């Protein structure tokens, strides 16, 4: 018995010692890593196999190779889980040195939490570069009284292009709609022919809001009203003008513009549905241009035209706009100091300088930077959309400015409207969520 006791005791001792050894080893490897001048960790969401993701990953690898004294530890996280992953590590105070963020309320949170630091040194060092961003490009990342810049966008999010199937429009002898009335007429015509007028995949409920409602609402309410409502400064989401905007969306639903079950298929399935010629139109973002360019055949792409959402004549807002603005950019952790900070800044510059912007733009993906692209390097649909985006003005994307909770409220609210829900209740919920989030700040 005694022997067994001793044996077990030794076993426990050995296992404790083994675990201790293990942790020693990890510490050792870490300290060898530090013998290089700096190690920068970077997290981003360019994890996919699309052109843009590969381009950005190549840029990171290239930076790593060109700077032997800086070692870059990159982690690519799929887009769908990215926000959650980042906010989870932010809550645990374990953010990487450099990470990708989205313009708007997502970045606001990092700024408010004191988790990021300005990249102003880069702006001063490379002033030509800083001046070449399109208007509002850098403004989205300016915070504080001094207007310090915290990031430089590496993309443009333009979320509301009206794509149309040229053949279907010709075959049914209809013109591409320019006004709301024409739009409704076109929808009726296609419905009479048993063709789905507009394809939508709203299973993840941001789609209807980001691609369609934002554009409609801006045409109805005007941008200024929306910005005031976000701040709750003399405007509220229960205002009649917002109900009216919801009403325009309801008109589309009531006109059977969308295919049945639009709330149970995802955006990619809707893109395929449209590309297969089963729907005459689709309102979707610049990501659709990239994914169609990557997956559809040339014939299909040549048959697709792109324009803006029709104007609403009774509305307060501008016509010719696309919802969108600066896309995501890289930010620097506020805890990065010394060599790590220097290396982090260099990395951010390498990923957003002129060459990087051009590389990203030529991977069929929009940028917020004044850069010329060669038509032969890109897909024709992308070239058309790229030029369209540069000829129009931007309107705000709802969920980039609303608080996360209010964004969820409008997303769910639009689904409710598609299911026959009441407009006032939806407006009420959005208002409530926005007020509550402002109080919590």
């Amino acid at each position, binding site marked *: 018995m005694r022997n067994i006791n001793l044996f077990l005791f030794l076993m426990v001792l050995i296992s404790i010692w083994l675990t201790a050894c293990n942790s020693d080893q990890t510490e050792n490897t870490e300290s060898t890593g530090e013998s290089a001048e700096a190690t920068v960790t970077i997290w981003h969401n360019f994890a996919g196999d699309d052109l843009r993701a590969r381009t950005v990953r190549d840029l990171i690898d290239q930076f790593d190779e060109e700077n032997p004294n800086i070692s870059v530890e990159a982690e690519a996280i799929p887009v769908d889980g990215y926000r959650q992953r980042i906010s989870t590590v932010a809550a645990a105070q374990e953010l990487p040195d450099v990470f990708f963020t989205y313009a708007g309320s997502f970045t606001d949170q990092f700024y408010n939490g004191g988790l990021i630091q300005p990249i102003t040194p880069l702006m001063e060092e490379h002033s030509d570069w800083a001046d070449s961003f399109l208007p509002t490009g850098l403004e989205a990342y300016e915070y504080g009284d001094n207007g310090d810049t915290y990031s430089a966008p590496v993309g443009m999010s333009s979320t509301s292009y009206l794509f149309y199937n040229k053949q279907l429009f010709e075959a049914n002898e209809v013109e591409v709609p320019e006004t709301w009335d024409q739009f409704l007429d076109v929808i009726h015509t296609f419905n009479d022919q048993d063709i789905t007028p507009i394809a939508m995949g709203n*299973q993840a*409920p941001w789609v209807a809001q980001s691609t369609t409602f934002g554009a409609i609402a801006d045409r109805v309410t005007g941008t200024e009203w929306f910005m005031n409502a976000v701040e709750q400064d003399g405007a509220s989401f229960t205002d009649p003008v917002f109900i009216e905007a919801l009403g325009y969306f309801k008109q589309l639903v009531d006109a059977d513009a969308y295919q*049945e*079950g639009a*709330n149970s298929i995802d955006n990619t*399935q809707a893109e395929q549905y449209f590309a297969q010629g089963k729907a005459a139109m689709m309102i979707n973002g610049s990501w659709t241009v990239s994914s169609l360019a990557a997956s559809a055949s040339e014939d299909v792409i040549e048959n697709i035209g792109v324009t803006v959402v029709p104007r609403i004549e009774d509305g307060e807002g501008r016509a010719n706009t696309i919802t969108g603005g600066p896309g995501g950019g890289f930010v620097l952790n506020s805890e990065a100091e010394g060599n790590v900070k220097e290396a982090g800044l260099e990395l951010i510059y390498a990923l957003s300088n002129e060459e990087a912007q051009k590389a990203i733009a030529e991977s069929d993906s929009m940028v917020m930077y004044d850069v010329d692209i060669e038509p032969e390097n890109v897909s024709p649909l992308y070239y058309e959309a790229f030029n369209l985006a540069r000829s129009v003005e931007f309107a705000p994307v709802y969920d980039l400015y609303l608080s996360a909770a209010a964004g969820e409220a409008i997303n769910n609210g639009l*689904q409710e409207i598609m*299911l026959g*829900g009441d407009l006032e209740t939806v407006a009420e919920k959005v208002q409530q969520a926005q007020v509550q989030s402002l109080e919590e700040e």
Partner: protein
Amino acid sequence: MQDILKAKHWIIISLLPALLLYTFIVIVPIFWSSYYGFFKWSGMNEPSFIGWANYLEVVNDPIFWRALKNNMIIVVASVFGQVPIALLLALLLRKTTLFQRFVRSAVFLPMVISTVVVGLIWGYIYNPEFGIVNALLEMLGLESWTRAWLSDPAVNMYAVSVPIIWNYIGPYLIIFIAAIQNIPTEIEDAAKMDGANGFRKLFYITLPMMWTTIKVAVVLCISGSLKAFDQVFVMTGGGPAQSTELLATYMYNNTFMTYRYGYGSAVSTMIIIVSLILILISQILMRRKEEKGMSI
């Protein structure tokens, strides 16, 4: 005597590591989580103490109650779907011919597939454009029955219950087959000699002999359904318009989609309380049956 005492010592010492792990991974986080429920916390800013406000908001939020109702639909569907189907199959498949083994493996197969894959597969089955459910109905001439199964709030909770039932019949089937095989052959033989056949044997011998196993299965079923998340999250994400929101998706959406970590923690605590109450109720109900069984 001394040996027994020593053995007890060793039992305690051997259990200790597992107990410690369990305490730190399960018990402590439950208390941490209920503690965070008292804070307003976006996950990034400093948390600030707000007392019972989060808990009150949970109780006053109609969506929470809708999520609870939806969860109860899953519980009921599981208890009255998974358990009877598994029992029936177990009674039919107790022999080990090749065909029966094949059916058994087929029923168990969904259990081996990742729940995310199950969600995706059933998402396609229910797809309004090319889903097999609508296609079958059309083939049978039942066009009026076709619908967008996952986005029509009148039916989508029932639609998402089906994959969950399908997914988890396997383990209950195995448990029940084992229980049936554990019934001593002497009793069966005696019953046969007394002339009990078919349904009589089933109701007077087989089922009573399996009763404890069935009870365990029901408890497992209830606690499993309260944790339901993955399949529904993949198929609908709780939507459209929160019509298929479950307690777990509601907690997830609040915590990670709207960055209300404090509120999400309060919801988690409420889920634990609800689960404990339900398990307690089921235990009481079962105990009554047991006493009745014993008095007979």
